[in-house]
């Protein structure tokens, strides 16, 4: 068929409902606000790794859906999360990305979280322990017990990641993500892990487009590295397996890393309980990716900043017990593909930014195809179909026509198929 007229271009594709979505899902400001409110404020997000706050009184700050969060390790070694908001007048309590409360601050004492504005202080359990001129200002009308921090649900799980959920009533983390983690649970929990890599990208694209890229492997045609190291019968037999809650696991196969000039096999540093050079991927709704390639684990976490702006935080992890030499080898393995100057990540980011450019707010709505059917193997797009079915349920919107309420599509791959 030749190039199409506008009517042909915007017509429904000859596919079933569920095999395409409307690009407004990626560009609409109202949908973006709804996603923050209905999805991100109600799902478990791995905000950091426990090795980032390895000692008592260490802290990390982050945010979910514009809500500032502080995570700290108490003297009892427990990791807890709180809103990083002073209950007095709403000042952000800790402004740095990380540090230790063992040190005193200009406005406060050691071992306390101190709001610099008026000197209110909190312990590592979030209890208020000091209100400056408390009696003089509040007499007996308000006391420290009334002004503790807002605690957040927090679990350290699945390889030591620190998960936070803003909703006190959401299902527990095991119910939410336990099943997709089964394929790597023994590996990730065999011994403590440690983060060795962190960088972030802020790109002009929708967060779901990044998650789509992590959930579909048809785009391996973009990656010379993956074509030469991967394209074989075992690669094309890899299965995408759908799980409840919109999660997807991409099954493993053996990668031939040494087929790329200058690269080496990763067999010697495979993670515990895994055969050599394996490649597992766990894609969690709404935008979290765990990617284990033989010797290094990568975790991507998205923070949507707007319908067409997304921050992606990239972490690389190895075993805490690594020797210096092994750690350096793992770092090189990680970076050669996934580092900011590696072979694949740059290509992935160019790809999603190109999509973001064609789907800016106000751009003509168009069909984005998710219709490849290949028996749920690696180039099947069942992972994306499964995701958008879940997304439609959470927002009560039909992904192929987001002005309409959700209805179950015919062509979606459901969990445990």
């Amino acid at each position: 068929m030749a190039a199409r007229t506008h009517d042909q271009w915007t017509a429904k594709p000859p596919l079933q409902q569920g095999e395409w979505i409307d690009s407004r899902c990626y560009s609409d400001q109202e949908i973006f606000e709804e996603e923050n409110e209905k999805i991100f404020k109600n799902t478990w997000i791995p905000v950091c790794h426990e090795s980032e706050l390895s000692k008592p009184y260490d802290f990390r700050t982050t945010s979910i859906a514009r809500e500032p969060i502080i995570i700290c390790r108490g003297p009892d070694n427990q990791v807890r999360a709180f809103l990083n908001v002073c209950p007095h007048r709403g000042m952000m309590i800790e402004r740095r990305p990380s540090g230790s409360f063992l040190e005193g601050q200009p406005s406060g004492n050691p071992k306390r979280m101190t709001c610099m504005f008026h000197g209110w202080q909190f312990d590592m359990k979030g209890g208020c322990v000091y209100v400056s001129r408390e009696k003089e200002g509040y007499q007996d009308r308000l006391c420290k017990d009334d002004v503790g921090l807002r605690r957040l649900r927090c679990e350290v799980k699945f390889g030591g990641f620190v998960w936070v959920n803003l909703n006190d009533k959401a299902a527990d983390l095991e119910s939410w993500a336990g099943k997709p983690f089964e394929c790597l649970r023994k590996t990730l929990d065999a011994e403590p892990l440690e983060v060795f890599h962190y960088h972030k990208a802020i790109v002009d694209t929708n967060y779901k487009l990044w998650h789509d890229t992590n959930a579909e492997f048809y785009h391996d045609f973009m990656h010379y590295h993956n074509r030469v190291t991967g394209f074989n019968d075992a690669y094309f037999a890899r299965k995408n397996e759908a799980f409840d809650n919109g999660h997807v696991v991409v099954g493993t196969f053996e990668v031939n890393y040494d087929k790329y000039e200058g690269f080496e096999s990763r067999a010697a540093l495979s993670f515990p309980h895994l055969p050599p050079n394996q490649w597992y991927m766990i894609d969690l709704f709404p935008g979290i990716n765990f990617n284990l390639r033989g010797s290094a684990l990568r975790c991507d976490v998205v923070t949507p900043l707007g319908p067409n702006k997304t921050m992606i935080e990239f972490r690389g992890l190895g075993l805490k017990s690594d020797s210096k030499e092994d750690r350096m080898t793992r770092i090189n393995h990680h970076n050669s593909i996934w580092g900011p100057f590696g072979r694949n990540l740059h290509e992935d980011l160019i790809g999603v930014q190109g999509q973001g450019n064609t789907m800016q707010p106000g751009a003509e709505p168009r069909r984005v195809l998710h219709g490849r059917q290949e028996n749920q193997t690696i180039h099947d797009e069942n992972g994306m179909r499964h995701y958008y079915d879940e997304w439609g349920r959470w927002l009560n919107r039909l992904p192929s026509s987001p002005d309409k309420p959700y209805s179950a599509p015919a062509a979606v791959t459901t969990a445990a198929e």
Partner: protein
Amino acid sequence: MATCETVRDTIYTATRLLDDQKWNDWLSLCDESFQYSITSWSPEINYDMTYLAASKKDLHHLVDLLPKHNTDHSPLHRHTTVYSVTPSDDGKTATAVSSVIIFQNMLDGTNSHIDAGESRLFLIGRYFDTLNVENGKPVFLKRELKLDNRRLDKGSHWPL
């Protein structure tokens, strides 16, 4: 003083060759034992990170395979200022510290129609170089580009 002058000239020549994407000419300024790295300290994870580590052989592979990869076409422009050159006591080597600011002159950008022709700050950091100066013509033994950035957006396929 002559050594300091030739070391500075060599660092500036390397900057020009990198800007011009004359990768092999840049590598010809490097000893066979050359070690290259891009590093950054992350307060987020409290870790001295290595973003890229490569030998001269690795770098040859990397640049030879560039045509096989999809890369942002926007050229990079490095502004290098050599802060200090310190010859070793035996006069065989010298170390140098330079400030480097890397701009990206947009060709692709997000939308080339809008962005092409604009220059954006891409990265800042310092080069920590070690050079062999024995023969009067300095050659790089080691280069560490220590970045201040951890926000790297699309990143790059190119040596910096």
